[in-house]
């Protein structure tokens, strides 16, 4: 079976009913995509299938065909995607485990709606974060979309870019 992941064709020998998540993690060794629930509830396994945000835990690898898969590892080469830059500047992640999925979901939102409203963010950002980083995720999208300046967001937390060390 062939899988097109991050611009590379991989030949893998797996059962057709294996979820795409486990092919990505265990056959290809790309562990940035996480297992959280296995039933498409948490979004930790979010990847792009032909550019569309999907939950890879619930897609059998046989259903992927020639579709192009993009994982968190290929979002940018150097943390340069606006979402990654905002996430770092605001320290959005706490434990970080769900953040591959959150970053992928946020980047997909901005591709679809470059200047999302709070209501757009509410409906698009449906991934679970058990650390509760939701307020910072919203801030991060505001900054990544250019709707708020970093300094403006940091000021709400009594910080400035200069006092962040």
């Amino acid at each position, binding site marked *: 079976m062939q899988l097109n992941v991050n611009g590379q064709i991989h030949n893998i020998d797996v*059962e057709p009913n294996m*979820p795409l998540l*486990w092919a990505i*993690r*265990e*056959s290809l*060794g*790309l*562990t*940035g*995509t*996480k*297992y*959280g*629930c*296995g*039933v498409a*509830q*948490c979004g*930790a396994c979010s990847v792009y299938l032909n550019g569309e945000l999907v939950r890879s835990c619930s897609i059998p690898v046989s259903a992927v065909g020639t579709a192009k898969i993009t994982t*968190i*590892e290929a*979002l*940018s080469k150097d*943390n340069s995607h606006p*979402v*990654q830059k905002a*996430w*770092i*500047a605001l*320290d*959005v*992640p*706490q*434990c*970080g*485990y*769900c*953040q*591959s999925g959150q*970053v992928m979901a946020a980047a997909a939102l901005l591709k679809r709606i470059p200047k999302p409203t709070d209501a757009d963010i*509410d409906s698009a*950002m*449906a*991934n*679970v*974060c*058990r*650390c*509760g*980083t*939701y*307020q*910072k995720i919203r801030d991060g999208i505001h900054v990544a979309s250019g709707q708020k300046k970093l300094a403006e967001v940091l000021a709400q*937390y*009594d*910080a400035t870019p200069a*006092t*962040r*060390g």
Partner: protein
Amino acid sequence: MKNNNQNVSLENLARRDFIIKGTLVGGGLMLGIGAIPDLAYAAGVQYDPNTPTKFGDDEVNAWVSITPDETVFIRIARSEMGQGTRTGLAQLVTEELECNWKKVKTQSATPGQSLTRKRVWGEHGTGGSRGIRISEDYVRRGAAAARIMLLEAAAKQWNVPVGELKVDKGVITHTATGRKTTYGKVAQLASTLTPPDPKSITLRNPREWKVAGQPYARIDTANKVNGTKVYGIDLQLPNMLCASVKACPVFGGKLVSYDEAKIKNMPGVKGVVKIDDSTLAVVADTWWHANTALNALPIVWDEGAGAKTSQPAIEKMLRAGLDEQGDFWQRKEGDAPAAINSANKKVEAIYYTPFRAHVTMEPMNATVKIVGNRAEAWVPTQNGEGSHAALSEATGIPLANCEVYKLDSGCGLGRRGSTQDFTTFAAKIAQQYPGVPVKAIWSREEDLTHDYYHPIAMAKMSAGLDNAGNLTGMHIKVSGQSINATLAPTAIKNGKDERQLQGLYEKGPDAQLGYTFPTLLTEYVMKNTHVPVGPWRGVNTNQNGIFMECFMDECAKAAGKDPVKFRQVLMQSHPKHLGVLNAAAKKANWDAPLPAGTYRGIAQFMGYASYSACVAEVSVKNNVVNISRLVFALDCGHVVNPYLTREQIEGSVAMALGAIFNPEITVENGRIKQQNLDTYPLLKLASTPRIETVLVPTYDFWGGVGEPTICVVGPAVANAISAAIGRPVRNFPLSREGLSLA
């Protein structure tokens, strides 16, 4: 290099395991503390670069190592699970060391090294919001000692009095001549000097901190946004096998038999391992293969007596406890029952709070490799030394021949802090595959149905009011499950267990009740079930905060008084509790009018040596609650990093709101009914209100942050809801009151 500060030189630690290929870290053969040995050979996987492996001749003391390129490696013994302790401790070290923050990296001290070096880094356990508050003193003294040694080394080199030197960001200057040198240049000499007596060191006044106390960025964020951070579940070791575990669905049940033949030809399957009387695992080449075969494995269980228990019976037992008379744990001041009985007005309410699951985003897992008489474990744990002991106990291999490599956890929440069952299980499986690393992962279903749950509890609260609306007596009677009964039975004396009354204690410094009642009777009636319980972020402050603070609002209403003013009268002997109450009320403009349909609620409570208060503003339409504003005030004494402290509060609010609005864990035929996040959903972004935090540190104690910041959110929101709908809410989650969160 001689290591004067320790009884054991570093060379003695230089086992094969710590030597990894330099290619991973960029040149040369390096001796690695906290190194992940086999990872050097694992294709495409790097260990967390925030726990770098480079370590060698440059140890100034146990806390600090400085290389000639001026990189400062700071040793951290506590676990990181997103709470920011790594960054906070590094800030404290940098503050006293006077090194360059931009050059700081951290290393994880391992439990094995700690054993060899006579626990030089203190305890590793990271729970109870203790990561910083319990270790700050010796960590800061260790850093200051290193600074003193580095300056002495420079003075020695230049043959000048040390008093003529000053240091700024790792650059040492001889004030008289302007000569300069750096920490990196004198570190080797410094490490040969006699360390100062830690007691002789004067630490910086926190009010004068330059690095600590600042809202610095986390030092470990970058690899959390691109998928390269390696969690325990992501480990890939050469020849590794994977296991999926399953325990009897009913707690206390036993494994009778299983039909291995039915799965032995399934893809990748290596075998079935019986872990203990009630647990087995399927081992395969990948976890997906292991878990698929486990789901197909015919298993016969003896479910035992627990199978007869369901939720209504548990609730009935707790409810009966509220009316029992007996020799319970009691705190007695005056005769509260008599005062209440003779009061002008009597207020009474019964509250219920449920079982809750942790649901760390990264399911429980551990990897163990046993070669001969040596065992190694790679574990996301809050208790490295606990896992170390569990590894030794499970394998029978002496502690000195065991090592644990802690990986940052994908959430801890208390689940990874006490019972190290994940390590025990992985060790038992790995024993059957000598020489091969085995990674055992709980499926989400297994993780959710074999947790150590937040204990279920009820409380009957009674109070008396005189004809002026003053409170004359308070009777708090809690009936519920004991964490100690599951995890530390010896802590229970004659059936009495004070721990369940966290936050209602008479004395500080950890979790003191913030009210002085004219008479008070506090009782705990222990009612244990067969469901294991344990610490769940905030632990017993969560339900006790709800009981106390929701009831205070009921009393205020019965007295016809404002909830803030009613509390203030009873808090005059508790200035810090009162301080945060007032700070939250002020920030929220408590006395200012609200738009029609919007109502406020307030709560204050103490836990983990810190004081919290919260004000919520809500409106309720068709039983749907909309939280329009949430204000939080915290006094944690000293704030090591205000930005990350605020993040802990933001996370606590989300945890608390999920706990009061989302479905609960229930028991059916002895097992947990909720199997996954479809039936046990967690709070999402759209339901999370904006959180405004006010930090009001009083600079005279060290309090925790991660946990004391949950217990006030539920009651503040519930009190606002009660004000909005005109009746008290007493049953949690609030679906039991017909309410949901917008």
